[in-house]
């Protein structure tokens, strides 16, 4: 399948992820939307690495996966700590920086 289709699919997934990050209030689903955005970029890198016959894109996608895994772990720990102190899961209510 051509490059146009790959670009369209990847841009669609990225924009769906952006929409989810903007419209949802649950921090877990906001995190999942960030994962969607990272995954769309990964897909674009892998497909273009195949089009251009060079492995650099796949290495870059591997690094993005590493960073995403670390980011998810730290983010979920922060969400857990916030829930432990506040018992509230709405990001609109978390508006002060002191515990």
């Amino acid at each position, binding site marked *: 399948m051509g*490059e146009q289709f790959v*670009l369209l699919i990847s841009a669609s997934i990225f924009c769906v992820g952006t929409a989810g990050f903007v419209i949802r209030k649950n921090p877990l689903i906001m995190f999942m939307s960030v994962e969607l955005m990272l995954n769309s970029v990964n897909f674009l890198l892998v497909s273009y690495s195949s089009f251009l016959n060079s492995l650099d894109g796949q*290495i870059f996608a591997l690094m993005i996966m590493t960073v995403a895994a670390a980011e998810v772990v730290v983010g979920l720990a922060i969400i857990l700590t916030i829930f432990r102190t506040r018992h509230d899961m709405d990001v609109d209510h978390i508006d002060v920086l002191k515990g």
Partner: protein
Amino acid sequence: MLEIATVFDFTHDAVIFVVGVTAVLASLGVILCSSPIYSALYLIGHMICLALLFLLYNAEFLAVVQIIVYAGAVMILFLFIIALLGGKKEIQENSLHRSMAFAFVFTLLGELYLSATVGPTKQVQGEIPAEMFGSAKAIGLELFSKHIVAFELASCLLLVAAVGVICLAKFSFAPLRRRVR
């Protein structure tokens, strides 16, 4: 991955089209479900679709990594957190902000697509032989020769993340509070 195409008697392009559209639909399911547990299940489906797409674009090693790391580890972590916090339903209201967000996002989609299609792509000549493109051996050769610094930095990043998470989870805010008051 010509085997998939020949077994089901599809063309390569048709398989890519179907899997790609399924991935987009699953991502829509992630953001439109009101309960986080359904969102997580849709996200697992989306990850598996992306792994299939990686396979169809000759990236076998990354497809396996995608299944193990994302659909395995990361999503299990999400499901554990949802089980711990209780998947409460979110009240959705149709406000002006919501429709504005959708308008913004669809404008962004159009602009991304236009800007991506207008610009020319420079063709580079790779030196990887076709039969081992995307295999674990090719990725390993590339990773440990050309990208060794990035590899070591990634290991440092993972170590820092692990230590940080242990600090966040183990020492809760009790010692901090005692010091303040």
